[in-house]
């Protein structure tokens, strides 16, 4: 099939049919921020940080496929402010204590906070009474930090198709949970994979922490998105 031509922020881009706007932008050196989108997983469009404007409508760029002649706005001031507001909302809806979180420096939410120069959120802190679940042998699950991106729900699946993680409750009571029976059979490798897939510090591997020295962490010297474009 022939390539599709679209424009993103005025730049003419080539993309493959069926490709998402996020992936097409990435291939053309344009960074559109993502949190719930994760390589190898089917896009879910849960976090909306990748929101772009297509033909005057706001769309999630991770779930919207490219179209011929599509005109995409991504880096406009209003959209960037909207993204910043989403980052702020994610911070106030959880209990994020970056100073002692072992994901600090590797955390995508923190990195986006820096990208958007978030100082004081415009929304009041909700201080939810979240819990931790440390009862499984390999995983320390800190619900205070979960942004409900569903990466773990989609990614941590047993060979027979069972999900290790899932969401409980509805609305503002929604919380991440772990299947204790399945989690008890997790290997170190599976636990590490689950931790790596979490964009924040909600899923931690037990007994090891802070092993990567400051200066060598993912975002210590390379701000998020700098490997793709501005």
């Amino acid at each position, binding site marked *: 099939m022939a390539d599709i031509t679209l424009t993103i922020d005025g730049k003419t881009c080539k993309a493959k049919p069926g490709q998402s706007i996020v992936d097409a932008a990435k291939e053309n050196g344009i960074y559109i921020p993502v949190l719930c989108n994760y390589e190898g997983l089917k896009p879910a469009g849960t976090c909306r940080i990748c929101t772009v404007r297509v033909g005057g409508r706001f769309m999630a760029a991770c779930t919207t496929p490219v179209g011929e002649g599509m005109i995409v706005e991504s880096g406009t001031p209003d959209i960037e402010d909207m993204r910043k507001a989403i980052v702020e909302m994610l911070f106030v809806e959880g209990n994020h204590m970056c*100073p*002692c979180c072992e994901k600090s420096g590797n955390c995508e939410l923190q990195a986006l906070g820096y990208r958007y120069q978030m100082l004081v959120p415009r929304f009041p802190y909700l201080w939810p009474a979240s819990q931790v679940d440390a009862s499984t042998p390999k995983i320390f699950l800190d619900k205070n930090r979960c942004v409900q991106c569903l990466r773990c729900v989609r990614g941590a699946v047993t060979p027979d198709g069972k999900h290790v993680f899932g969401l409980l409750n509805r609305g503002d009571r929604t919380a991440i949970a772990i299947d204790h029976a399945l989690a008890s059979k997790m290997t170190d490798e599976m636990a590490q994979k689950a931790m790596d897939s979490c964009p924040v510090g909600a899923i931690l591997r037990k*007994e090891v*922490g*802070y092993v990567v020295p400051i200066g060598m962490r993912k975002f210590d010297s390379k701000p998020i998105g700098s490997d793709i474009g501005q």
Partner: protein
Amino acid sequence: MSRKITIEPVTRVEGHGKVTIHMDDAGKVSQTRFHIVEFRGFERFAQGRPYWEMPVLVQRLCGICPVSHHLAAAKAIDVIAGAGTGEGLTPTGEKMRRLMHYGQMFQSHALHFFHLVSPDLLFGADGDPAIRNVIGVALMHKDLAVQGVMMRKFGQEIILATAGKKIHGTGAIPGGINKNLSVAERDSFLKGADPLNIEKMVSWAQGALDFFKDYHSKNKELIDDFAVFPSNHLSLVRKDGALDLYHGVLRAVDTDGKKILNDVDYQDYLTYIGEEVRSWSYMKFPYLKSLGKEKGWYTVGPLARLNTADFIPTPLAQKEFEIYKAYTKGKVNNMSMHMHWARLIELLHSAEVIRDLLNDKDLQGDNLVAKGPKKKEGVGLVEAPRGTLFHHYRVNDNDQVEMANLIVSTTNNNEPMNQAVNYVANWAFNGKKEITEGMMNRVEMAIRAYDPCLSCATHALGQMPLEIELLGAGGIMLDRKRR
């Protein structure tokens, strides 16, 4: 008419403290108290958190000596991670932590002496408060100020290279360390451009001691007679009795030099040490159980360490230690202002230890972490700049901390600081009709000798105004002064 004098907040200290002095109808001091008036709560925050988080979480107690908390917590967590009680680490893990710790000791002692204490010595207790501060030192004694700043910087750079950040790093992890020292980092300390190299630091530390000894020879009354009272002394010492600021056994001596805690394993500290709560302060009062609450209190910090240690295992500091000990004819030293002398000897010792470590190839090793069968409970002790620091954690079956107990240096020194305040208040205030700024500063000087770092027990940082209130017997304010 009886009256109450309040010094609040105490200045040129880290943290928020208050002093109250009650005077009776005859104008005599009837009671003094040094209060810690804010509450921290870290022992509660720690509950429920994973044990490997403790060295990073709990160091947030303090922005001045976070390394001490980082390492004390790490040593306690080592025990839980099965890495032994201070001697099971790999050579690289152990020595990198020591380098971090002595870097911290070096920068903190430099800060304490040059920034916080030297103004009192250079300008006098009655000196103009407008210049009796670090800015005044910079204006009037530039060389000394530059040395203070650069020595602090050198120590901070050591911390950066070992912990990843100058303040609140992550270097110490359960059972070891997360990085070694690169050859480039090592060489920057050994051969750095003047003055930031270890030889200059050793030389400047010697210079600071010479400065103090010269000052001492001209101001014997202040240094020898200010806040002198009998005390027990407690610290870690190496198993052979040497001064060791990172690891050892617990030793305490009484005011006559008799060992009252004979080189015991600090994992059993609860057998020997109790903590008393008094209603007027958020800070507890630790004591040696064998002597009871009344007589069991003890001093920690440089003065105590040089009272408990038999010798210093580096040559230049040992030579100074011998001069220092000869001054009291080998007896226990209870002179509060000699805390500064002892501190400067430790400053020199730290520089020597850093030099030795930098020349040790183990720092470039790759075996960073040791592990073994997990335990449920661990105690970690280090000698922080201001004194012995206890961290104690117990975890549940899910690796969560269920109990944390911290006895910080400031807490250990609680009763001695109260004693010093009482001594100085009686000496300076008794029978005086007018309360001068210099008199109030003398009370603060007594606290500064022990501990300008109340952050472990309090939150407020920075320079704050000193306020004094004269209250009549009925609580009516008679006079109020503020600076």
